[in-house]
């Protein structure tokens, strides 16, 4: 049933780690960590945690949408900004896309939630608030927004698989290409931090008051982040016809449910292992170059993930965690990490895992301590989610 093999022809990203891939990668390779208290909102949870905000003014608004129609949510603005970069890298002009059968697959959590606090406060008071917040919600679901803004005709899908949304959105692009539904997919994830998730994660007591420390023995929780990652996923035949050299091959995708607990991962990592094995599609685990781990820096996640990776790939498997640079960007996390995974394969390098210092034997793996050279074979990016979701995407270096 496979219509064509998907490849990656464009990448774009925006996070606290940097605006644009080159900037973000250079910053990460230099070990720069930039987090702090929230600047756009005030909140007083029991546990204050720094966040990884995209700094105002540090990124360029997209020119895809005319000035008068500029998006009014940060989620969509972040995505469009990263999309600018990805389309340019893929050699795709916006006006060449209009009316074409091009898919849009976006992961998000905040971006499709009807939870405008200001509106709801007014509503609760019986103030009969203006519907601007509702209209903004209806108009700014990320995938339909992008499809409409670019006048595309392909499949459109916003995935909300909680923290695995971005990875699943990239995986869905693979499915669409394999099914022959379209030859090009704009895939990725986007999210913004607001009081709503900030207070919610704090209530779960899984945020850290310090910059997060993935896989470290002293880790005590995550920091929220925000931003967007975009990948242009394209049928190989389409890339060849356009004369574009792919950046990597999107070689596999797996997802699974734990059926174990609403917020805790399966202790044996059985679901994650199923997702990984499916993504591997029969490849030899020994050939893997590295895993870009979910690595939230919560006590449970890193143990389950680390032991699963060690069991499948061996305890010496090269692991990197990038949330020490971006924070946990929720629906954008998997997409940002997919972008970084491809970049690692392209450059043959990996950054140090920011925040990691002391190995935790319970995690069974030791992530990168410093910027590292790696073989250009294949790499996997993993995500675990609320509700027991697991997802993994596999990228292969191009010869």
């Amino acid at each position, binding site marked *: 049933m496979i219509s064509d093999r998907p490849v990656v022809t464009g990448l774009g990203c925006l996070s606290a780690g940097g605006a644009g891939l080159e900037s973000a990668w250079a910053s990460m390779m230099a070990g720069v960590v930039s987090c702090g208290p929230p600047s756009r909102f005030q909140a007083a949870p029991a546990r204050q945690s720094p966040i990884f905000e995209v700094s105002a003014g540090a990124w360029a608004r997209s020119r895809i949408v005319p000035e008068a129609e500029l998006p009014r949510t940060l989620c969509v603005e972040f995505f469009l900004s990263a999309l600018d970069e990805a389309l340019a890298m893929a050699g795709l002009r916006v006006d060449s896309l209009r009316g074409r059968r091009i898919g849009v697959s976006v992961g998000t959590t905040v971006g499709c*939630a009807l939870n405008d606090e200001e509106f709801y406060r007014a509503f609760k008071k019986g103030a009969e608030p203006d519907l601007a917040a509702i209209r903004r919600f209806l108009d700014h679901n990320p995938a339909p927004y992008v499809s409409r803004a670019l006048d595309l*005709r392909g*499949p459109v899908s916003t995935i909300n698989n909680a923290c695995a949304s971005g990875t699943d959105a990239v995986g869905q692009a693979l499915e669409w290409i394999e099914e022959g539904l379209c030859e090009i997919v704009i895939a990725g994830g986007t999210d913004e931090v607001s009081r709503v998730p900030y207070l919610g994660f704090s209530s779960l007591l899984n945020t850290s008051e310090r910059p997060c420390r993935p896989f470290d023995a002293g880790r005590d929780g995550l920091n929220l982040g925000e931003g967007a990652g975009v990948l242009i996923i394209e049928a190989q035949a389409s890339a060849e016809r356009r004369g574009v050299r792919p950046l990597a091959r999107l070689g596999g995708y797996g*997802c699974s449910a734990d059926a174990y607990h*609403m917020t805790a991962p399966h202790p044996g990592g059985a679901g994650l292992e199923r997702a990984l094995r499916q993504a591997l599609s029969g490849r030899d685990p020994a050939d893997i170059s590295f895993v870009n781990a979910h690595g939230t820096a919560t006590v449970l996640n890193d143990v389950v993930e680390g032991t699963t990776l060690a069991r499948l790939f061996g305890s010496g498997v090269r692991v990197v965690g990038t949330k020490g640079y971006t924070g946990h960007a929720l629906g954008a996390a998997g997409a940002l990490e997919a972008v970084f995974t491809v970049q690692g394969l392209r450059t043959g390098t990996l950054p140090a895992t920011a925040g990691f210092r002391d190995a935790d034997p319970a995690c069974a793996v030791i992530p990168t301590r410093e910027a590292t050279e790696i073989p250009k074979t294949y790499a996997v990016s993993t995500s675990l989610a609320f509700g027991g979701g697991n997802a993994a995407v596999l990228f292969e270096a191009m010869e």
Partner: protein
Amino acid sequence: MNDVRILGLGPVLVCGQGVEALEQALGGGGGLPNAGVPTDSLTGFLPPARIRRIDSLGRMALLASYLALRDAGVAPEEACSDRTGIVFGTAFGPQTSTFAYLDGIIDAGDQMVSSLAFTNSVHNLAAAQISLALGIIGPARTLTTFGYTVGGSLLSARHWIRSGRVDRVLVVLGEETSPVMTYAVSRMGGGSDGVRPFTQGCSYTARPGCIALVLGLEAKGYARLVDVEEGLTAAEAAERAGQADGLFCADSGRADESIAYRELAAKSLRVASHSPLYGSLAISLGIELAIAALAITGKAAVPTLRTAAVAGVSGPDRVTMISIEG
């Protein structure tokens, strides 16, 4: 190409629960009940202690799932496998839990936020509830794409089945209502006196509801899923509709939507929309698909059809078209 078929249906709607109740509603021609969707009968499938902490959208989704599996002749223990997948589609997500969580922030303050309310407000929790209750450990995905939700859900399910990833997929589509939605609908010109498809003006009348479909490869069930096409122009969709024996429109009564459906219906011999029975829901394309499947098997009180097209307007000049046949 392997034929994916609709093997079972699980309607949980204001007009009734289960296939027989839906058939009766289709035949009865009654008005739109001004009520919620009771989920008490979930206790026939799960012990009350297991249900207690499940939010209202999750309960509807679970009940619809159990009913659809039973209708498909799949025992819960048979579904409990990595060979079953779950796709949950919702445009607005768990509204009750979302606003309960916001109530907590506003009423109790930043330091007293309920972690349970926050957890239940996450859109994919209904899929997780289905997975947990039924022991399903295959792929699970939640889509929240407004007018594209149903088409996308079916495309995911079809791929997983065709690729051999799973044997069957539970496609569960559900929406809740809330005081906020009622207020917004009212301000936007909708009302509470019933949906009037294909008419001018807004008659959007929100109701909660859920429909589950079991898709698989067995040569039985209701109908073959011939195609799912997204992003069609109205002209392209009208052409597809004209080739089918009947056209089912997911007209929820929005003014712009009803105009588009009239254009689509112009080339069709038999046109229907059943939203006056179940109300306005963003996932009504899935409900019309279920009714079309009943019509294919002669179980609905509409003429028996050999082929059917089911249309959903997903944006300006953008139509999702699902084609099925017996």
